[in-house]
């Protein structure tokens, strides 16, 4: 069984910050800042792992639709949607 913290760190740390995932995200534009898109959420997940929590972080992670459209554009092949789902689990536990 995977350790969620280790898995998030291993997966999200591969983000090279290119942003190629962002145009496919349905929540980025209405959200109003980068935290509402996959690039932002993946990197927020790395902060959640370290224990960071704030209202903006909760909003950013819980507005994701988990549609995984972003996964198809990631050149680093990160399972972005799963990173976000696991980060939600950490946030709520």
């Amino acid at each position, binding site marked *: 069984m995977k350790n969620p913290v280790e898995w998030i760190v*291993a997966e999200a*740390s*591969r983000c*090279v*910050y*290119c*942003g*190629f995932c*962002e*145009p496919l995200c349905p929540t980025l*534009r209405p959200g*109003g*800042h*980068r*935290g509402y898109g996959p*690039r*932002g959420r993946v*990197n*927020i997940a790395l*902060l959640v792992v370290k224990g*960071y929590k*704030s*209202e*903006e*972080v909760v909003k*950013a992670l819980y507005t994701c639709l988990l549609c995984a459209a972003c996964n198809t554009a990631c*050149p*680093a*092949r990160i399972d972005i949607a799963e990173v976000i789902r696991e980060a939600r689990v950490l946030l709520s536990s």
Partner: protein
Amino acid sequence: MRAFVEELRGVLGASKVVVDPAIVSLYSREPTGLSSEAMAVVFPENAGDVSRILSLAYKHGVPVYPQGSTTDLSGGALPERGVVVSFERMNRVLSVSILDSTVDVEAGVRLGDLNIELSRYKYMFPVDPGSVSIATVGGAINAGAGGLRGAKYGTMRDWVLGLTIVLPDERGSIVRVGCRTTKCRQGYDLVRLIVGSEGTLAVVTDATLKITPLPEATVVSLAFFPTLEGFYEAYRVIKSSGVQPLMMEFMDSETVELAKQTVDVSFKAEGNMFLVAVDCNVEAVERIEGWLRKVMIESGATSVYTARSMEEAEEMKLIALRRNLFAAQIAMTAKLYPGKSIVVHPEDIAVPPSKLLEAIRAIRAVSDEMGLKVSIGGHVGDGNIHPAVGYPLDDEKARRKVYEWYREVARIALKLGGTVSAEHGIGVIKKELLQMELEHMGSIKALEIMRSIKRVFDPKNILNPGKVV
């Protein structure tokens, strides 16, 4: 600084100023691997908001960093304290005029979205950096971006007619420069001074851009050559034929092998890749297709694939290898440093096309000498080469070695009559190389002129300080 942020919230409204460190950190990092710390991110909704931000920043002496989508590859959008001004909420296409061949857009419009809008009119904005789907108009203007179609259509410098800019002065002056016409002799050319100035002189809020009709038809030819000489012969023949291709893309054989691991293609892809697209009228398609095939085969290509439209080329995945260049470079670096956070550094030199082969060979040689695994690709139609190497984010020794490699590649470009930065800009990473280039030209005075210009626009040095000059 806190007083400034509070005043900013009072003037703009709290919803436009974000201070949560988690969110601010998302605007304090770049694909270059460089990161820093800003104090806040501000989201203006119009030029008036930007004016108020710059006026307050001038009063408090606070640095301001305009940002598009942060796809910059030279450290040009990196904040150091101060506030980031993000244009995500200024993302409207204001008007399209087919008769005038212009479009008016806000700075935060993504180039990909702009082209979707223009395709309704069978028009396009032809500057297409590799990050076209995410890059914004404002970011592309600041960077002086180019792209795959650069050989035919040039760079942002050639497609911006007019700009609304805001100055970092007491009033946050809003100034309109340039015209709505292609011909425009408005004294000194301030539009072209701002384009490529990397947000160091003024903040661009909206732009009038030239647009052009979509090509009636496009022929695409993808060929693989066992030798670099074969590729270059085909390149030389096409470049000397009087035909101006829409696109000429190259990947060396080692990079093709990497790219193949990231995308499934049904055709045989072995050797040095040469992708050529020529736009033409429908009546000429068959003739151009036959001519391209003939040139490729007579130059020594072992396999040639052609398509009679971009759609067909996409279906056949003829462009897929090139599109996956960045993914290939990431895969290459990840394989070299398993389990590590990595950075991929694409270089960005241009040499005269007559020196292209020499440049590719020299880059390969210096990389091998330094023991660096390099992938070599580029928009070779205009002599623009993007060799790339990667390293682990936390390895300072490896970073220093890559930066030394940067200098070596720059020396190759200068020796061959080229330039150290074709389309990515100077930012912080290439400041030393800019100086090297101007010294090489015996024109260090040009750097003094640039610094003087910076002082005229930004006397308090609060606008993207530390970049370019």
